[in-house]
């Protein structure tokens, strides 16, 4: 069986004027880009605008995609992210941006119980949807890229313009934040600030 064309092959063909390559690449990558923009931008209109601009950027003669610097999917997400940042700057939508909470090293929540215990599958999904939407931007974007859209760390790092180690640490912190938010929701909504320094005897 013939292997599917890579993104890069489709890119080369679309630049050569082969419309079906553009359609194939669009259909392959549009859904994840749209969802990323929707998660980050918060509205279908913003998501549609961003997705459109990403693919229009790809059509420009000097689109800036350089295969040696990363994959095409990382490039596309990187463009989407830049467009979203511009939107945030213009509209000052990203109120969570400043609530960045760098935890200053290893800390752990006081409550280590399973944050999703006792919830049915649909309740889990909805609780997580709310929790992801309330994460500060830098944590939300890494969760959306790595956990929801399943980019690997290298692709996420290229899209975000940061080292892989940063992706890894942000992802870990984001998951801890999510766990806290979910426990908080189960307890009835009081914000959880009860972080304590890790004490590990190992």
């Amino acid at each position: 069986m013939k292997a599917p064309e890579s993104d890069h092959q489709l890119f080369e063909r679309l630049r050569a004027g082969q419309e079906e390559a553009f359609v194939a690449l669009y259909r392959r990558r549009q859904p994840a880009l749209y969802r990323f923009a929707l998660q980050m931008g918060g509205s279908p209109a913003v998501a549609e605008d961003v997705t459109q601009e990403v693919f229009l950027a790809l059509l420009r003669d000097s689109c800036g995609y350089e295969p040696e610097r990363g994959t095409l999917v990382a490039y596309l997400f990187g463009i989407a992210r830049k467009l979203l940042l511009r939107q945030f700057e213009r509209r000052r939508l990203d109120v969570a941006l400043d609530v960045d909470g760098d935890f200053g090293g290893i800390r752990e929540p006081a409550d280590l119980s399973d944050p999703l215990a006792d919830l049915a599958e649909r309740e889990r999904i909805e609780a997580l949807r709310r929790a992801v939407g309330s994460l500060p931007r830098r944590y939300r974007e890494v969760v959306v890229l790595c956990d929801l859209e399943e980019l690997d760390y290298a692709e996420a790092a290229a899209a975000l313009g940061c080292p892989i180690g940063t992706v890894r640490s942000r992802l870990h912190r984001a998951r801890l934040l999510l766990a806290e938010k979910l426990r908080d929701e189960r307890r009835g909504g009081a914000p959880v600030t009860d972080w304590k320094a890790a004490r590990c005897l190992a």
Partner: protein
Amino acid sequence: MNCEEYWNNVGALPAERLAAHLAECRSCAARWAAEGSVVAGLRLLGADEKDVSAPPRLEARLLRAYREQYGRRVSRTAGAHRWWAAAAAVLLAAAGLWTGAWPSAAPARGVSGAAVLAGMEESQGAFIPLPNAAGVTDDDELDLVRVELPRSAMTALGLAAGDENLAGSVEAEVLVGPDGMARAVRFLN
């Protein structure tokens, strides 16, 4: 390995070294389990959203931009694919009309809303609205696709097919909506 080293290197160090730390540290083991639960939930959320995608009108809009940029250098393969899709849609519509399954004519107002095609409509003859055209608004973006149809499709739409053999073919243009359904057709020869 202490806890800080563990969490700074999780995912980068060999699994056995990480497992060794978890075996020694109940605190990190509990955190690892809690994080695992969140990750499993996120996988569920990701799967739940897999069907979310941009509206079809965006593809039509981008295709127009692509054609403007690349001067309609559409390859034969793509053209053939789209022609077949449009031809199938028209034939289905024509068959529906012929068997009386649909109303004989839908209002043409919506179809004329495809501003990009308005000029061509006047100069090359009117489009025949198909049943799907009923819901078209002026804001809808339609694609123009040229197809070759059996001459019998003309008679199915109530048009004179000429003296030629009905088994022959005729060139037609089809307006296709963002959902891929044919909205209107006109025969060119």
